[in-house]
């Protein structure tokens, strides 16, 4: 019997089998809605890329030493990662909690909140890792030069996506109603999205904005992707990557705490 093996040892924390079970659930569910998700996750950043790339590109041809379309193609990778992780995390978590009662079912199984959050964030990070490459591929079609460094982009996307997914879970865990999501989107996500060096370099902004941007994970993701495509910048990139890892670990714990508060009474 399946349970006999289990009894031999005490189940610990963050078990691979428990996280795997949560992942399997997400993957099987994904098979029923992947078309619409893939469409929105890839088409939206591509539209940004084309609109800004050609719209602005006709006014400014070179930005920060790069062709503007190349500048935007690399920048919107981070946007695609952000959108395809934080929003599904916010809405997905809330819907599963409030309307589908999915978490009641999962937590009645030998899965703890910690494993539940980890599994769901890992899955969104994997998805974001792939979706985030779409703008880069579009950029390549429009003349971006391929480089070996680009092979690191999925890994950068994964780490950033994990942090954003955890942020989304934490927001859903923290907020009482889905209507409050609007506050977060307008007051937090939109500024983060705009002040990250995606569409224009931050060098033209006031000093204090530049200083604040250093705290924006999206900025570090944009920098890393750009350097991956155009040439690494040594310690600066080590710092960028370290920042994303710290961001991911921190938000992971915050998300777990928020969900434990929500799910266990």
């Amino acid at each position, binding site marked *: *019997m*399946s*349970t006999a*093996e*289990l*009894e031999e040892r*005490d*189940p610990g924390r963050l078990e691979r*089998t*428990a996280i*795997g*079970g*949560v992942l*399997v*659930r997400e993957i*099987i*569910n994904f098979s*029923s*809605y992947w078309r619409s998700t893939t469409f929105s996750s890839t088409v939206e950043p591509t539209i940004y890329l084309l609109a800004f790339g050609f719209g602005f590109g006709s006014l400014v041809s070179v930005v920060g030493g790069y062709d503007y379309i190349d500048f935007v193609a690399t920048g919107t990778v981070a946007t695609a990662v952000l959108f395809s992780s934080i929003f599904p995390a916010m809405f997905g978590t809330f819907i599963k909690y409030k309307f*589908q*009662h*999915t978490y*009641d*079912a*999962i*937590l*009645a*199984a*030998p*899965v*703890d909140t910690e494993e539940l959050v980890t599994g769901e964030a890992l899955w969104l990070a994997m998805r974001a890792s792939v979706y985030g490459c779409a703008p880069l591929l579009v950029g390549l079609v429009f003349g971006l030069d391929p480089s070996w460094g680009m092979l690191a982009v999925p890994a950068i996307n994964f780490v950033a996506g994990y942090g954003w997914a955890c942020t989304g879970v934490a927001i859903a865990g923290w907020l009482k109603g889905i209507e409050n999501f609007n506050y977060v989107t307008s007051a937090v996500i939109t500024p983060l999205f705009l002040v990250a060096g995606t569409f224009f370099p931050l060098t033209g902004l006031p000093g204090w904005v530049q200083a604040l941007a250093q705290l924006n994970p999206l900025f570090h993701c944009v920098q890393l992707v750009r350097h991956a495509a155009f040439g690494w910048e040594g310690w600066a990139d080590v710092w960028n990557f370290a920042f994303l890892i710290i961001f991911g670990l921190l938000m992971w714990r915050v998300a777990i705490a928020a969900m434990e508060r929500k*799910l*266990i*009474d």
Partner: protein
Amino acid sequence: MNDRAACDPFDVPSAAHALELSHVVKRYGEITAVNGLDLVVPEGRCVGLLGPNGAGKSTTMRMLTAQTIADEGQITVLGHELPGDSKAARARMGVVPQLDNLDTTLTVEQNLVVFSHLYRVPKAKRKAAIERVLRIANLGQRRDSKVDELSGGMRRRLLIGRSLIHQPQLVLLDEPTVGLDPQVRQELWALIDLLRSEGVSILMSTHYIEEAERLCDSVTIVSHGSAVAVGAPTELVAEHAGRDAVEIYGSPERLVEVEAEMAKEGFPTRRTGTSIAVLGLDDADGRAPAGERRPANLEDVFVLLTGEEIA
């Protein structure tokens, strides 16, 4: 020792208990949802947790999976102390929730695949486990149907079947037939009876008296968060209501009078909505009132013990 006897009508040694709660308390601010509850499910028995809405049944069910943490008291499930060892207990326990939480865009079989992973059925045994559940739940023909396309009864069967994917030793059923029509309810009773005959320990919360009477070896009647009576349904009826009840019909004013008269005589009564049922008539001899005589039942006990006002 006395406490144990009070909540354990089977007098089974505690090592053989699938589940045991003693003096469990759960408060939400000013409200005490569970108030010193004692409850035992001996191995291989089906125990009913019977009580009106708001008696603390659902809170109790959530405490057994450690989704609600008790403020006081002890909970042991399959030999594991909760909430610390809850995960090991959950691995050997199946849970049928009151609210349907199937993945509705997935097929019947996909739902079972997901749960075979969540409940850690080893890879080599997964296929057989899924086939077994499809057979038990009688859903073999509908394995490729999306849950959205199933009838209410089929969804419930799948929900129960899903909880059996890992051959649990203990199954918790939270209001398993609430909101279903009588035919579907009978179908589910047959399914629960099958489990019982296979030796699975069952705790079932319900407020359908007939369900408890038919399926449970013992019931614990809860009111305001604590147990007010424990025993086999027939024993409880004999003890609290006697052999027969006499129903007296009349205008609402007349019924109020009857209630007062019977109280004076020392007979317990309970309202049925259209009549007053007079109970405890075993030793009444000639003093028994005139009216329609019928065998006393668990519903009489239930209403007598849990009160008549709706909270």
